[in-house]
């Protein structure tokens, strides 16, 4: 280290307070982490200024996965954008579907039948568990706990099998539609889900036995990337990152949608706002999601056989068997697919996604395509906060910080 000056890189400007006789400090090293770094959880590039191993500056560079989703929405029209919402935060497509469907329902004053709401809650909570399992697995593998990755992915695979049964796809489901959901749930799926929910809490205990009291996990996370509630709010953070600092705010509780107000669940909050608290919040959220799923399943029995999709034929397709027999219904299907329009105005409907508050701000001019569709991506705000948490910390803490902020680049870049 003593002859660091001979390294071939352009020396940066060291801060004034650095002791130049100290062999561990001296000149700034510009380090580009990503965009193809596995620990950045997607194509994120971080321009890091390093002094020794201490991060003195950090500049996230996003946009590598920008696909112009908002522009696509304006070109494709209201209905055809649904499959694109899956590809935003691709670890939780159903939550994205629901957020988009809800903003359209607000715009068109569309009522969703109770069974539709219950099914939505059930599969959204399953998706939340799957998304938190990804967080847990990838963050743990970045911090050296390789086993956790396999444990969480085993459980996630079970959820994907369930979602396959519910929606017909493992990923990119496009199952939630305007006015309800695409298909009904039958008894065999309920039995499979019950089976999964019965064993899953013991798996969370297993994860906790591996990590919560683990000396290495604790030291890598505790006190790292701490946020105050004021900072978290000023930086527009939401979801588990906000609750980790002790702010009791959950869209499901405070701006309820889909009937969450009638469910019994608790919102876990942290105290210190560090990576370890965010981890604990997410673990507890998985347990609460299990409770919500169980309640939703119990309610499913009461609404058996009732509508799961609105009967408002302006927005939903006619039943397939009728389309085959009747010219009018065929014309109607054609009209809905090509020309479904929503009333003039603007609407915003937030949902509590696994990353924070996800919402679609849509503006309509009364035609079949939106005038504007803005996606309020919680992940973008999480990326924005990386410099706040990382500056002054060691480079190795960057992995813990990126992991615990939890973002998916498909949603950040849109």
């Amino acid at each position, binding site marked *: 280290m003593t002859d660091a000056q001979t390294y071939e890189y352009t020396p940066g400007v060291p801060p004034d307070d650095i002791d130049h006789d100290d062999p561990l400090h001296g000149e700034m090293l510009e380090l580009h982490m990503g965009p193809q770094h596995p620990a950045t959880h997607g194509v994120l590039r971080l321009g890091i200024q390093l002094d020794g191993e201490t991060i003195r500056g950090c500049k996230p560079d996003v946009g590598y996965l920008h696909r112009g989703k908002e522009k696509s929405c304006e070109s494709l029209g209201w209905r055809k954008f649904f499959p694109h919402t899956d590809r935003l935060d691709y670890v939780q497509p159903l939550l994205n579907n629901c957020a988009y469907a809800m903003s359209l329902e607000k715009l068109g004053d569309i009522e969703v039948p109770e069974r539709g709401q219950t099914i939505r809650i059930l599969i959204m909570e399953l998706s939340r568990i799957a998304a938190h399992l990804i967080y847990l697995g990838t963050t743990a593998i970045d911090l050296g706990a390789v086993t956790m990755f396999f444990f969480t992915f085993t459980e996630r695979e079970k959820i994907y099998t369930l979602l396959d049964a519910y929606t017909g796809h493992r990923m990119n489901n496009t199952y939630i539609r305007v006015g309800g959901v695409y298909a009904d749930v039958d008894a065999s799926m309920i039995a499979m889900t019950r089976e999964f929910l019965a064993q899953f809490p013991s798996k969370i205990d297993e994860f906790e036995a591996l990590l919560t009291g683990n000396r290495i996990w604790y030291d890598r996370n505790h006190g790292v990337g701490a946020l105050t509630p004021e900072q978290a709010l*000023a930086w527009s953070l939401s979801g588990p990152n906000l609750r980790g600092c002790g702010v009791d705010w959950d869209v499901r509780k*405070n701006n309820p949608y889909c009937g969450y107000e009638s469910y019994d669940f608790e919102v876990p909050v942290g105290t210190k706002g560090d990576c370890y608290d965010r981890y604990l919040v997410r673990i507890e959220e998985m347990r609460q999601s299990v409770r919500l799923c169980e309640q939703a399943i119990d309610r499913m029995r009461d609404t058996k056989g009732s509508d799961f999709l609105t009967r408002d034929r302006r927005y939903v397709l006619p039943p397939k068997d009728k389309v085959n027999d009747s010219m009018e219904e065929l014309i109607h299907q054609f009209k809905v697919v090509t020309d479904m329009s929503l009333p003039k105005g603007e609407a*915003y409907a937030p949902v509590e996604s696994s990353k924070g508050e996800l*919402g679609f701000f849509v*503006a309509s001019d009364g035609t079949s395509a939106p*005038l504007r569709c803005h996606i*309020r991506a919680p992940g973008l705000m999480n990326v924005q906060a990386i410099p706040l948490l990382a500056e002054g910390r060691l480079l190795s803490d960057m992995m813990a910080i990126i992991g615990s902020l939890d973002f998916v680049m498909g949603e950040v870049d849109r």
Partner: protein
Amino acid sequence: MGVLERIAAVRGTEGYTAVDARDGTPCVRIEASALPAFALMLRDECGFETNTFVTAIDRTEKRPVFDICYQFLSLQHADRVRVLIEVDAADPRVPTIKDLWIGASYSERECFDMFGVAFEGHDPLERLLMPEGYEHHPLRKEFPHHGIEPDRLYREWERTRSAGGKA
């Protein structure tokens, strides 16, 4: 107390117009020059701790204007407010609010990137998603969905490639 009552209690009913939004969110329309004072009032006296998004709506198909939309969330009152500012599409500019809510910084950069809205006082105002040096603002209505090619960056890349990877 609702959002509009809180605002009226602080500054009366002058200088802004309440408008109806389809989703029932309280909405106010103000002038661009009134934004810094209005935003400060929202944060310090009406309890809006956090900025949800900053974006724009291109209305040039009807009239040559952009609507700049801000949405704020108040946790203590559990409500939201939307602020709309109409700006000239030929020269869209509004004052920045990133000094009040640092979290609005990326949203403003994105809005500049996508619509070319200049946020005065946001320095340096860089692109967020599109590459540096890109010539267009893709979410404007005049920009075609399939893109505009070749643009300057593309031509530079072509030149580099034909020179065997050396610029």
